[in-house]
């Protein structure tokens, strides 16, 4: 093909457009005659190529390249498209349209950077350098030149010579050094560049200083990489720690830094490092008086060698201390601002990560190199305030439990102090029960913060105008007045338990030790306390029949499969209700009163309770574990299968031991505990048997022992009475009898007994059986016991005033 090309070149001039469409021909001279020789396809291609190679019109070229650029982009052939773009940019460059050229070159360069093609990038950067030089943009020129100088082109000139690299020159280490020197000349303020066509606008001077910013994704990270590592991750305020600053550059020649400024987020910690070998340049401005100044003996960056500097640093302010920027001054007019990076999270250098060169750590300590961070946490200074919570034992359900909180200053004055109180369920649940129906709690909270009282015995007018007080169910906020060093203040928290559950009380005090300004630093003290909530009393009740009187309750005879059998009470008969209260805490309690409240229907009280609402004469002390019993008489008035009995109301309070009371001005609060009595079944007893006998007997004296049987039905009742003899009595009367009791009437059986022995004796055993209901009755042992005096006793009576004791038997 190459041979024939030469021939055809000779014949190019003789190619003429054809007469026929699409067919080019060659015109040959044969003597005086002209003949047309049709061209073969190959020859035509050569002709066309040669023609096009001589094409000089740049705008046409650019248009064609643009079309192919778009076509390739549509095919997503990114590299081909960028190659077309590169050629377009070269055309723009050739016709001196530098801004267009620069734009295209920039986009091409980013692709080469990403894929790591150093030589191609070198070429493009060379063009970009020239463009910025022609456009007079010193900053761009310096940026591109620095990047070029720091490219990983390690071939020494001569091994592989790349000519025709554009304005960049051959890609070699030597050329990188040339570029390096040139850019540093520009930075230094000399504008002398030999090849420059008299363009002096690249001047860097005092009026036009140059400021480069290198962030975490900048390609200029290869020029200056700053790694900052704190030696400790947590420091106390005012305690010094060490910080290691490491700088790395890939520039081929050594770089001398005049001054380094280390900037932190807390600007009081900023400091400046001066190059000890260039002290005269330290007379540089921007050194504020009072700013910390350090001198490093050497601030020279060698290629790919970390420059490590370690300094002490301390901060008074708590919070995060982070190194933000490292600002390096190279020469009087040039500054590079580099973002600090942590060794733990440093990205690889672009392009250099593919090079097989030695990698070193930013710090000598390998653990710091792997996990060092550019930020450290400065702790809060230790608070010098005591916060104490005193709790006097477990809290009892229902009472307002007082917890005193004391704030005492041990070294810090307290400005704008705030006390936060939180109540949290120890099991993590909330303190609200959403849907439970609890008849005794007024709201659905389990534990509630009722209030916070200031210093006891002081009136409300003491609270200042700017003190905050906010109480919610499980959260409270109160402001603490100003306290000097050594003073103390206390308040009392009032918390009520509605349920027995343990609760964590968190109290935290936030204050400023030094001033009352709103943004002064705040210190915090936290205290927590777990408080048990316990049920104080357990109330139980029991129904008993009166002494020596037994109404027949049919429901008791019939076996009912229902395990929960309601107690049955006889209608219009007195039953004894025995209510006992047990103290099930470790705290002694004082009982104030125990009463029975009867439920009132619209029709009036459905049953009468005797001694229902009488207070105790004096509060009864109930030590832990002790039981208190009270007897009530209940007479149901209405015959209902389910009769609501009402509630037992117990008023009590905690008894503080000596020295336990939280405050002498306060007393424990009274608590009302209610216990609902279950419903009872009231029935009309068909038969009532009552045994009557005198309270005591005298030896040898006869007395009458009566058995009365009441028939409260409309039917005739057949009753069998059986009496067994007793050794200690002489009995006169029938042992065995069957009696018929008329409806609505009573039958009385009387026996005369003479006691033969003294002391507590058993009366003859009585058995009463009803045929109709197949039920029998035998009195209990207590009911059949009688005390016999040997001779008539003489009683001394004392005047009891209003006697509360009523004898049931006297009825």
């Amino acid at each position: 093909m190459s041979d024939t090309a030469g021939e055809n070149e000779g014949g190019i001039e003789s190619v003429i457009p054809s007469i026929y469409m699409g067919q080019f021909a060659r015109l040959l001279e044969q003597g005086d005659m002209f003949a047309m020789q049709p061209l073969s396809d190959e020859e035509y291609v050569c002709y066309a190529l040669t023609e096009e190679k001589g094409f000089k019109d740049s705008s046409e070229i650019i248009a064609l390249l643009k079309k192919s650029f778009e076509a390739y982009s549509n095919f997503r052939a990114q590299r081909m498209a960028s190659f077309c773009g590169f050629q377009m940019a070269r055309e723009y460059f050739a016709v001196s349209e530098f801004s267009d050229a620069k734009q295209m070159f920039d986009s091409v360069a980013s692709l080469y950077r990403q894929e790591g093609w150093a030589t191609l990038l070198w070429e493009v950067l060379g063009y970009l350098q020239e463009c910025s030089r022609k456009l007079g943009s010193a900053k761009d020129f310096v940026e591109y030149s620095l990047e070029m100088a720091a490219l990983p082109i390690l071939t020494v000139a001569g091994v592989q010579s790349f000519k025709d690299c554009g304005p960049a020159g051959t890609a070699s280490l030597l050329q990188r050094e040339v570029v390096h020197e040139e850019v540093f000349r520009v930075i230094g303020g000399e504008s002398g560049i030999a090849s420059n066509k008299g363009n002096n606008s690249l001047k860097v001077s005092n009026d036009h200083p140059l400021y480069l910013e290198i962030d975490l994704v900048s390609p200029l990270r290869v020029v200056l990489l700053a790694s900052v590592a704190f030696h400790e991750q947590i420091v106390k305020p005012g305690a010094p720690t060490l910080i290691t600053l490491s700088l790395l550059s890939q520039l081929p020649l050594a770089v001398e830094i005049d001054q380094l400024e280390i900037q932190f987020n807390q600007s009081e910690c900023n400091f400046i490092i001066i190059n000890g070998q260039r002290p005269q340049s330290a007379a540089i401005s921007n050194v504020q008086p009072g700013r910390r100044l350090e001198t490093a003996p050497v601030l020279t960056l060698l290629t790919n060698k970390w420059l490590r500097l370690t300094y002490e640093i301390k901060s008074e302010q708590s919070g995060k201390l982070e190194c933000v920027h490292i600002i390096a001054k190279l020469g009087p007019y040039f500054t590079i601002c580099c973002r600090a990076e942590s060794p733990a999270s440093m990205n690889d250098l672009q392009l250099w990560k593919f090079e097989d060169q030695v990698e070193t750590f930013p710090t000598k300590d390998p653990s710091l190199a792997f996990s060092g961070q550019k930020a450290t946490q400065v702790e809060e200074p230790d608070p010098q305030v005591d916060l104490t919570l005193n709790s006097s034992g477990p809290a009892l359900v229902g009472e307002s439990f007082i917890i005193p909180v004391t704030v005492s200053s041990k070294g810090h004055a307290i400005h704008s102090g705030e006390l936060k109180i939180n109540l949290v369920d120890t099991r993590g649940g909330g303190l609200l029960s959403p849907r439970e129906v609890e008849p005794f709690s007024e709201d659905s909270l389990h534990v509630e913060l009722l209030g916070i009282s200031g210093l006891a015995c002081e009136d409300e007018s003491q609270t200042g105008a700017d003190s905050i007080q906010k109480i919610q169910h499980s959260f409270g906020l109160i402001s603490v007045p100003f306290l000097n060093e050594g003073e103390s203040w206390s308040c009392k928290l009032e918390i009520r338990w509605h349920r027995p559950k343990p609760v964590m009380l968190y109290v935290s005090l936030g204050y400023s030790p030094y001033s009352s300004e709103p943004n002064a630093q705040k210190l915090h003290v936290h205290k927590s306390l777990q408080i048990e909530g316990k049920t104080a009393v357990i109330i139980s009740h029991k129904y008993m029949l009166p002494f020596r009187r037994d109404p027949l309750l049919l429901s008791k005879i019939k076996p009912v499969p229902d395990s929960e059998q309601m107690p049955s009470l006889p209608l219009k008969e007195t039953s004894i209700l025995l209510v006992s209260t047990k103290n099930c805490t470790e705290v002694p309690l004082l009982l104030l009163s125990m009463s029975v409240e009867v439920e009132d229907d619209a029709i009036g009280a459905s049953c009468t309770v005797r001694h229902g609402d009488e207070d105790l004469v004096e509060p009864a002390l109930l030590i832990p574990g002790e039981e208190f019993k009270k007897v009530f008489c209940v007479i149901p008035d209405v015959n209902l299968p389910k009769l609501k009995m009402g509630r037992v109301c117990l008023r009590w309070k905690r008894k503080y031991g000596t020295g336990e009371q939280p405050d002498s001005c306060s007393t424990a609060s009274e608590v009302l505990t209610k216990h609902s009595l279950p419903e009872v079944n009231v029935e009309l007893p068909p038969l009532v048997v009552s045994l009557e006998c005198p309270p005591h007997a005298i030896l040898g004296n006869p007395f009458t022992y009566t058995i009365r049987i009441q028939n409260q039905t409309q039917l005739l009742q057949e009753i069998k009475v059986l009496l067994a003899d007793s050794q200690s009595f002489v009995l006169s009367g029938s042992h065995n009898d069957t009696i018929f009791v008329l409806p609505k009437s009573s039958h009385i059986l009387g026996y005369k007994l003479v006691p033969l022995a003294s002391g507590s004796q058993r009366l003859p055993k009585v058995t009463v059986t009803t045929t109709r209901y197949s039920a029998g009755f035998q009195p209990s042992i207590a009911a059949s016991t009688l005390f016999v005096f040997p001779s008539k006793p003489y009683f001394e009576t004392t005047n009891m005033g209003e006697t509360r004791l009523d004898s049931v038997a006297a009825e």
Partner: protein
Amino acid sequence: MIVCVAVVGHQNNPLYIQSFTEADDALKLHHIVHCSLDVVDERVNNPKKSGPMLNETFLGLLYPTENYKVYGYLTNTKVKFILVTTDLDVRDADVRNFFGRFHAAYVDAVSNPFHVPGKKITSRTFAERVSNIVKSFGLSSAG
């Protein structure tokens, strides 16, 4: 005559580029190799139905420019070998043979315990072997 061989990593970064030309257009060869990666991507993403389904796919002629022919070869670790030649009548079998030997040399270079995977190949032995293979390619095809 082979003017350029290249080894390109799976991130499309050059691991090894060597030109065998005395002419000035070494940089242009870099461009050609770079552009040929597009074709490789396309071939990889849209495999021809008639192509052999071998793991070590010889990609064949990637694209012809006016002066050069570019051949490609893909290893199973997504490393690409690119060959640029100025010969106009190149036999397929010769190219396959070349790539086979080149692949063997590459594997030996990468197996070097001092070679860090992902970084450029700097072994001089590899460079020598490659030049030998290139020279012998020229000899065998000339015959």
